[in-house]
């Protein structure tokens, strides 16, 4: 039962984690993209559709990332080149993405999709207790973990990461030092779009292989909140995604046991626990301030 619960938690956490890591990179560059939900749902429909048409779940995964990126590109052109307001543009992007995905997905409704296969290594996957958890996941689960490590490394141990953070913390100085602020932000936004698209694709290819309109059901918003929860640190985003999923799943488990606690209270626990956890980690104000991108949400236009 513990093993099954952990497996369920991993599946529930992965789409949140993928989208959150993407948005984390975007925000580190100083850009706030509230269109995560829209990019996710586009990823979900594109991933499902391409997998259905080609029969390959892997191509579906690629398509999901590209679809998320396409929407992110639109956001980037608007907010970076045309310096529109980021918050409003992101919200409009979500409206747009939900509508467009519904249109694109009209003919996929009611069709069974292609499932992203889980790893099956003879010997290892069959190990008791840990076999399935460590060696029996689909590639996106492993990818999400690798992504956390890679993003963590790149952000804090490489020059690219240094430039990215510099751009997010003080775009004026970064520009004065000769960094191309807009180009860096374009890259970060596109990366965020790809990861959000993957998060959506995970829903329609692995979590629940099907397409229904609006199937992300608000997960993009949770991912956004998790970036803040993480105080813009990748490993904390992972903690946040798994914490949120764990409390959700335990709530269902408590209901199944018939403990008689109101379902609405159990359903609100993930949100309350996240708030509480944030309050606790926010006590260390120095760490919080050091990691909050100072230019978050501000547009940049170089003076000429």
């Amino acid at each position, binding site marked *: 039962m513990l093993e099954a619960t952990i497996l369920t938690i991993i599946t529930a956490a992965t789409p949140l984690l993928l989208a959150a890591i993407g948005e984390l990179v975007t925000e580190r560059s100083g850009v706030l993209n509230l269109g995560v939900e829209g990019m996710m749902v586009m990823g979900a429909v594109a991933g499902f559709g391409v997998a259905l048409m080609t029969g390959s779940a892997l191509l579906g995964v690629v398509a999901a990332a590209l679809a998320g990126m396409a929407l992110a590109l639109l956001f980037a052109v608007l907010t970076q080149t045309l310096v529109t307001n980021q918050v409003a543009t992101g919200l409009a*992007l979500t409206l747009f993405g*939900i509508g467009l995905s519904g*249109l694109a997905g009209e003919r996929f409704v009611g069709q069974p999709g292609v499932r992203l296969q889980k790893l099956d290594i003879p010997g290892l996957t069959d190990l008791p207790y840990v076999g399935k958890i460590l060696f029996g996941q689909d590639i996106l689960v492993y990818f999400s973990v690798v992504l956390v490590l890679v993003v963590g490394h790149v952000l804090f141990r490489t020059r690219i990461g240094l430039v990215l953070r510099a751009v997010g913390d003080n775009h004026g100085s970064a520009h004065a030092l000769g960094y191309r602020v807009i180009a860096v932000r374009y890259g970060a936004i596109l990366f965020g779009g790809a990861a959000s698209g993957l998060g959506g694709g995970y829903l329609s290819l692995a979590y629940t292989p099907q397409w229904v309109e609006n199937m992300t059901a608000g997960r993009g918003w949770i991912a956004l909140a998790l970036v803040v929860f993480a105080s813009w640190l990748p490993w904390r985003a992972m903690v946040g995604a798994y914490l949120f999923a764990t409390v959700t799943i335990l709530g269902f488990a408590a209901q199944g046991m018939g403990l008689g606690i109101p379902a609405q209270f159990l359903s609100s626990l993930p949100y309350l626990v*996240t708030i509480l956890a944030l309050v606790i980690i*926010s006590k260390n104000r120095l760490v919080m301030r050091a990691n909050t991108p100072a230019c978050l949400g501000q547009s940049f236009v170089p003076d000429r």
Partner: protein
Amino acid sequence: MRIELEKRPERAEIFAWASPLIAVALTVVTGGLIFALAGINPLKGLYVFFIEPFTSLWSIEELIVKATPLVLIGVGLSIAYRANVWNIGAEGQFTMGAIFGAAVPILLNGWNDPSTLVAMLVLGTIGGMVWGAIPALLKVRFGANEILTSLMLVYVSQLLLDWLVRGIWRDPKGFNFPKSVGFDGWQTMPVIGDGRVNLGTAIALVIAVLLAVLMSRTLKGFEVRVLGQAPRAGRFAGFSSERMVVFAFLLSGGLAGLAGIMEVASTIGQLQPNISPGYGFTAIIVAFLGRLNPIGVIFAGIVLAVSYLGGEAAQVGLGISDKTARVFQGILLFYILACDTLILYRIRLVGRAPAEARAHA
């Protein structure tokens, strides 16, 4: 070829007025194309979407009904955002306002005179303030980021509402369906005219104007602007950014709560699990579309209302789906936001050849 922006020496006032018109023109062209592609007469399509909402008293009234909560929430948010306080949980404050205010007719059902309505509106405002105070205090006391806390509290408030109307606040005569008793008489907003427009619209307009005065004519407005733009300078001037966080949340939360109780006391007339089609989130767009200016927010609220009602009219009149209407709405918003750039910037197309074509967009 690429696009470059050049900062104007000063705000181009002409574009402050012209940019929405340019955006509409662009949307008309794009929309016409989309309709043509969908096999619909573009003229008819555009007519249904943009003109029809203004052609009958009924649809104008409905437009006003739809815009009212957006404006009321939007003006509160515009001031919070000016102060750099990121309240994105207005939807939750709206819900709590509805719950607090609705407690009056549900718990004291016999009370039905003008003071009932006053009590409902006051309690609704308090409900929104209470829910807004939580992220404010968590921010001031513990430094917890308000984007997360205010957003998460939205879901909590909706589940609380769900629990109430399915349980203790359920109408005893309602066959155990999830709704409260119906409100009537002074438990509802007085109607203006014979449609659904009610006193709430007047209240929203008065508040928008008052806030516009507050922002432009008072020290408090100056404080908001200074702390929003240059927090350090604000602190030197003796302003407290912590108090500003509390002020912004109480104001925007209170107004969202007021919008919440006004909505259940008018168009809905009872408490039920769904009371808002995302007003609290849409109002964020409204606030920015109105350039964080209370008067601008009024117009932005109308624009958003047109985009929703036009979409609905198009579903009925043209047989397009809700999805197409949503895409169209997105494009309209993109254009409006992009054209706003013209107020502060000149757009230059920089080609490989030195010939610089100045966009006359």
